[in-house]
């Protein structure tokens, strides 16, 4: 005889304000099989959990329903509480009467009726739940870090320094990411190269880190603790073991007028190149799309001058197979397509730049050696106009979010400009100044008070060229009148957007992403570095726009999650897996065809003499992920999914 306990949580006012909890309790008390029904303000709290435990032992409950928030929130909490009281945790189910009831309906009476139905149907389900035991799986103590920017490097170093093996995969030819491109960093004005490059070298030299640059993720299979990852190492056409990085080939390469990615198009590079002088590894790569030999079969100048014979034009992509226990995704961001803003003339006027281009101009390692000069004529600009939120916080451009770093880097740009050109005049068009962070507000104040940054609150509507000047027309909303500035250079604080192929990577990894392509965390507040897929973690701007301190903090958080995973001998996995009844299985293999994980094997049933009687399906518990697709395919009703059996679901539906 079932003895079910129903616990109705008020969630403060969140549920109780709409759902009549007393009525819900009364309805449950009279439901067949329900031994007790209680209500309480916060069942997730310590006294709340204690009261559930007491009821489980006191009444000898055979099942527990907590009518509260989404099971995605507190299923684990309440299942643990039940386990502590000696009840198998899989005999506890959550009725979601907050996210899917009280929060979405305005009529109290209807919400109460719905809450009763939801809870009742789960009571019917839990009556048919079975005791389940967690499945143990081994852990491979090797982490894969995708992305070699500051977030990826930080995560890799933290894991490696604690003794974990790391494979660091970077798709460009060098580590560094966006941070290597920056001039100085806010709010300390540390030189970015000075704090970044030692980290890059440390990561490359670390005995526990295997570095795969110029490589991309091809395929990911498996599950937490046991991923099988295939990495495509793209052909560099330069033998890394032979190359000494002397750079002779780069000097001789005749294809010289290729727009350089690292300098954001402000300088050219050759077809055989290292992305930048401090690259790690500091060995060149041949860009086969621009190489004269690859285009028309003649040249090979680099091969002729190479003193070690490291150039190999026959090199092909290599596939590297890796066994991995945990994955850190740190693929970063890219700068929004500036073509969205026709009115700002980006691309039409050479002196209209993005913030990242300005970083290169201001950087000592940049194309001008740190002198701020106009790309059009090399003159020092007397007036620079900075336009903030050029893309961000603009729903009409599809980017309603704040890119978070632009207020700060624009203040920094104005400062750097003033430091290099004391008579320079900077005007910053802004919507709001968002400078939340340690030392951030002080920093923007310094830009205004000490470095003469002229802030104008308002938007720019039009930009055109007149007598060698860029005319910027906008509104000063504080003075309530239009303004026009004759500028020599305009810098757009373009939005941070996800990598253009982030959705494809999300699909390869089996992790979620939002409407823009930023990866989804498991819980925005409480599980910000985990994804919904166990064993895959997020660091840096691939999750949402972030500055360097936030990215580094998140990367270290990822490392601690990975190390916690690696500290265990074995992992316990949810026992939600398929189970086959061999007595009724007809061996039609419908399940084998349906299974996405090849988790169903063919098993021989023999008599005592070893003669084959028939062949049936057998589920490999280590491989089965519990989707239940096989159950629906089964013609003889032999396979069922633990935790979501046919009986349970039918009962749940009939309880509605």
């Amino acid at each position: 005889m079932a003895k079910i306990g129903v616990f109705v949580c008020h969630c403060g006012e969140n549920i109780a304000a709409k759902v009549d909890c007393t009525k819900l309790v009364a309805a449950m008390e009279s439901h067949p099989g329900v031994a007790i029904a209680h209500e309480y303000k916060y069942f997730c709290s310590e006294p709340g959990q204690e009261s559930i435990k007491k009821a489980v032992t006191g009444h000898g409950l055979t099942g527990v329903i907590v009518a509260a928030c989404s099971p995605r929130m507190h299923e684990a909490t309440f299942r643990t509480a039940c386990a502590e009281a000696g009840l198998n945790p899989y005999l506890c189910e959550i009725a979601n009467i907050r996210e899917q009831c009280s929060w979405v309906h305005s009529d109290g009476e209807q919400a109460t009726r719905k809450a009763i139905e939801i809870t009742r149907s789960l009571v019917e389900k839990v009556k048919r739940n079975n005791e389940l035991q967690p499945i143990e799986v081994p852990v491979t103590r090797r982490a894969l870090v995708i992305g070699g920017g500051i977030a990826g490097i930080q995560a890799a170093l933290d894991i490696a320094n604690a003794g974990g093996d790391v494979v660091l995969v970077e798709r460009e030819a060098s580590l560094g990411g966006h941070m290597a491109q920056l001039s100085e960093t806010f709010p300390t004005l540390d030189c970015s190269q000075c704090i970044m490059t030692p980290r890059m070298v440390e990561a490359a030299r670390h005995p526990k880190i295997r570095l795969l640059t110029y490589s991309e993720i091809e395929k990911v299979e498996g599950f937490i603790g046991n991923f099988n990852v295939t990495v495509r190492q793209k052909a560099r056409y330069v033998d890394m073991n032979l190359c000494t990085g002397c750079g002779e080939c780069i000097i001789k390469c005749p294809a010289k007028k290729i727009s350089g990615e690292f300098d954001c198009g402000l300088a050219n590079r050759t077809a055989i190149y290292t992305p930048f002088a401090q690259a790690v590894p500091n060995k060149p790569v041949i860009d086969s799309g621009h190489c004269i030999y690859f285009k028309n079969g003649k040249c090979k100048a680099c091969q002729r001058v190479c003193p070690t014979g490291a150039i190999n034009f026959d090199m092909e992509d290599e596939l590297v197979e890796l066994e991995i226990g945990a994955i850190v995704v740190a693929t970063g961001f890219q700068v929004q397509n500036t073509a969205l803003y026709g009115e700002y003339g980006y691309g039409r006027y050479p002196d209209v730049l993005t913030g990242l281009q300005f970083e290169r101009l201001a950087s000592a390692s940049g194309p001008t050696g740190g002198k701020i000069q106009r790309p059009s004529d090399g003159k020092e600009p007397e007036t620079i106009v900075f336009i903030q939120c050029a893309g961000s916080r603009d729903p009409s451009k599809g980017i309603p979010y704040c890119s978070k770093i632009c207020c700060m880097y624009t203040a920094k740009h104005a400062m750097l400009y003033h430091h290099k050109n004391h008579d320079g005049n900077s005007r910053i068009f802004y919507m709001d100044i968002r400078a939340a962070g340690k030392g951030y507000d002080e920093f923007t104040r310094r830009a205004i008070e000490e470095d003469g940054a002229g802030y104008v609150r308002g938007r720019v509507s039009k930009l055109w060229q007149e007598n060698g000047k860029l005319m910027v027309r906008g509104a000063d909303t504080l003075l309530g009148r239009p303004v026009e500035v004759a500028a020599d250079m305009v810098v757009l604080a373009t939005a941070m957007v996800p990598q253009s192929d982030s959705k494809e990577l999300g699909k390869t990894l089996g992790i979620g992403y939002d409407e823009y392509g930023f990866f989804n965390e498991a819980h925005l507040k409480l599980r910000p570095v985990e994804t919904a897929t166990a064993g895959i973690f997020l660091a840096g701007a691939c999750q949402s726009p972030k500055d360097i301190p936030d990215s580094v903090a998140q990367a270290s958080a990822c490392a601690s999650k990975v190390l916690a995973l690696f500290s265990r001998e074995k992992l316990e996995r949810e026992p939600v897996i398929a189970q086959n009844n061999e007595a009724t299985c007809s061996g039609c293999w419908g399940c084998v065809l349906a299974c996405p994980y090849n988790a169903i094997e063919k098993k021989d049933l023999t008599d005592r003499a070893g003669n084959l009687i028939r062949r049936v399906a057998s589920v490999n518990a280590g491989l089965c992920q519990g989707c239940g697709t096989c159950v629906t395919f089964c013609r003889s009703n032999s396979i069922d999914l633990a935790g979501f059996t046919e009986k349970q679901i039918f009962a749940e539906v009939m309880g509605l």
Partner: protein
Amino acid sequence: MSEPFEPKIVAFVCTYCTYAGADLAGTSRLKYPPNVRIVRLPCTGRISPMFILKAFQKGADGVLVSGCHPGDCHFDHGNYHARRRWTAFNALLQFTGVPEERVKFSWISAAEGIKFAELIESITEEIRTAGPFEQYHKLIAETGSAASV
């Protein structure tokens, strides 16, 4: 005048996408009609046509099956199986005289709380217009096949 007809709709959804999308509608405090009851499953691939019939048997006037967008399935391709199964099963239902609007299929991701609320709004309206699913409920009553589970 009698009370306006309020349809009962059962939604079978996967936990990774549509259930999370429905949760997001909640955390965003969107409002939608209270006519829908959600049954959570690991994957749309787990959703058997029998569940749909069971829902009608229990008195549902409409059924929704919803999961991850094509290519986004947490279990790689369970949603493709679900889509194919739904296409075949829906054709069979229509052949037997069940009108098309009674069974709906959709893709709703974990980020699409707004889409979930709008979909429930529109389905409820559609089923409300179509009226109660007397045809099926009468059949069940007459043949007495509403066996206990």
